[in-house]
């Protein structure tokens, strides 16, 4: 399967490079990985109609779960009207052939009941062809956690198919909605926006640790842009560096190291430290600006921005600083590299005629794909944990907001609206 995908991609890339040769202009194409999504039927949940709470749970969980599955690109929902052609769902006796007849591979049955003041949600997932239950879960849910339980099930579905679950993960970002730049976090779909820092100074450029327990960020709270580690679930804040401007912190994929940019030796250089900020080592030595480190998923390499040739370009080096090579070509202003979780692609920002757009560099084919086309400033890309989506900030609506887009340029959606919101980070 995977080979097939790679082959298809390669074939597409070949055609596209041929087009590129003849067009001599900037490449504008979209990656189509052509993965046939798994057809999943999500019939309306069955609930105890005498309980208004069960009804509310059924509606909310259903709506959130179907949005999750649609967003996943792993599953494809069987249209509701197709279900009109078959016998109504009876959870006690499922007619699998019916479901097969409307091209269903996976059937997800949800039942909601209420016992005393508690809502019980039961999920059964069936493989239609083999007529077997492949997942069964029972949740007891408080009313304010209906969304979370839907995300949990979506994560279970991802795991079931060997995909990286991310529906319960959080996006950290910067918002000025309360007067000045502070850190916030939210669900992947923009729900549950929560403030994390409370002060009158600028808090800036946050990045998650891989387990999403810690956030490295830059703050001007001590009068100088320094790095801090915030542990939002422990209410703990630890300063990391002093002296110079310190920013663009990024945890390594194993969470053990921290790469960041600092000017403490007089010029913007990249440093690597232990995750707690100890044992700082400088890894770039150059009079140019070196910034924006992004780890490869193996942790062996780091992509970064440098203007050593006169304009900012994207480079890759070993995590110890050796073996530096330029990987960008074309364009005179490229920055903010973000290495994809599959290791094969680097998303970055390129400025052309004062517009900033997101591009994806495929490291295997050296092909560059333009992802956004909005005549705006699209900045700060960050991948979803499964590498099928990117979040970024853009002023395409007039104010700066956070958006999500799929790897192939489809499914653009805005996640924020209050104040201005920028510098989103989902994964490093």
């Amino acid at each position, binding site marked *: 399967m995977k080979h097939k995908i790679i082959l298809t991609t390669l074939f597409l890339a070949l055609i596209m490079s041929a087009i590129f040769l003849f067009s001599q202009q900037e490449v504008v194409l979209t990656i189509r990985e052509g993965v046939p999504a798994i057809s999943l039927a999500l019939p309306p949940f069955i609930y105890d109609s005498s309980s208004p709470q069960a009804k509310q749970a059924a509606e909310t969980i259903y709506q959130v779960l179907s949005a999750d599955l649609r967003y996943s690109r792993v599953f494809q929902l069987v249209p509701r009207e197709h279900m009109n052609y078959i016998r109504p769902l009876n959870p006690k006796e499922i007619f699998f052939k019916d479901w097969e007849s409307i091209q269903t591979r996976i059937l997800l049955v949800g039942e909601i009941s209420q016992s005393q003041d508690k809502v019980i949600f039961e999920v059964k997932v069936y493989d239609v062809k083999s007529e077997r239950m492949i997942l069964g879960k029972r949740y007891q849910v408080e009313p304010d956690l209906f969304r979370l339980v839907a995300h949990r099930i979506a994560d279970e579905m991802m795991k079931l198919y060997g995909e990286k679950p991310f529906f319960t993960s959080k996006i950290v970002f910067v918002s000025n909605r309360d007067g000045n*730049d502070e850190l916030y976090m939210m669900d992947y779909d923009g729900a549950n926006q929560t403030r994390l820092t409370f002060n009158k100074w*600028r808090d*800036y*450029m946050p990045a998650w640790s891989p387990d999403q327990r810690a956030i490295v960020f830059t703050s001007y709270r001590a009068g*100088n*842009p320094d790095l801090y580690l915030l542990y939002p679930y422990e209410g703990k804040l630890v300063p990391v560096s002093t002296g*110079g*401007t310190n*920013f*663009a912190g990024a945890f390594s994929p194993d969470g053990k190291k921290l790469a960041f*940019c600092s*000017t403490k030796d*007089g*010029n*913007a250089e990249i440093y690597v430290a232990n995750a707690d900020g100890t044992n700082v080592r400088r890894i770039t030595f150059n009079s140019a*600006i070196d*910034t*924006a480190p992004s780890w490869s998923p193996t942790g062996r390499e780091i992509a970064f*921005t440098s*203007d050593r040739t006169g*304009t*900012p370009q994207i480079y890759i080096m070993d995590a110890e600083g050796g073996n530096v090579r330029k990987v960008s070509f074309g364009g005179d*202003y490229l*920055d*903010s590299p973000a290495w994809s979780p599959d290791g094969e692609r680097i998303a970055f*920002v390129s*400025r052309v005629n*004062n517009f*900033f757009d997101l591009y994806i560099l495929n490291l295997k084919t050296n092909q560059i794909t333009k992802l956004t086309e909005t005549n705006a*400033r699209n*900045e*700060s890309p960050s991948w979803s944990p499964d590498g099928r989506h990117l979040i970024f900030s853009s002023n395409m609506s007039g104010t700066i907001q956070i958006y999500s887009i799929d790897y192939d340029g489809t499914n653009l959606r805005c996640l924020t609206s209050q104040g201005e919101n*920028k*510098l989103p980070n989902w994964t490093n």
Partner: protein
Amino acid sequence: MKKLLIFSLAILLVLSFSASCKKKVKEVPPPPAPQAQEQPKVEKVEEPVVKEPVLTEEEIFQKKTLEEINQEKPLAMIFFDYDKYNIREDAVPVLEANAQWLKKHPTVKILIEGHCDERGTEEYNLALGEKRAKSTMDYLISLGIPAERMRIISYGKSQPLDPGHNESAWAKNRRAQFLIIEK
């Protein structure tokens, strides 16, 4: 002389007489009219007014708060070209004037802030803002201002002077500005 002697003797006689037969004499001659006395001069009670001495420029300066000094903007900002951090020719006289002012106030310490326009990415702009602040500091060092009197900070594109989205706004936003932090 004789007359005076006789006269005074006579007075003495009369006086002694009058004294010896005081109890007998009922009528006492009226006392001599008091002599018209000269009035005392009115003395004005006053303390010497404490007059503030004329302050030197330096003393005036020391009296002001940092906030007041910064409001007067004694150090003019300088501007940079797009994507550049070198000191422009038009910035040279500004920095020379700034250096002169700093020499006149040798205790002053300053913070040099580097700023960028919105047409750069967050990370690169933060580094570029720092370069702008640094080259400004280096130029002031070359004009004889000791490095210990200066600190630099970069704000990237986060604090535009002009919120506009056109060339004139961008040109104003690509700047190094000065904040007096100690005097």
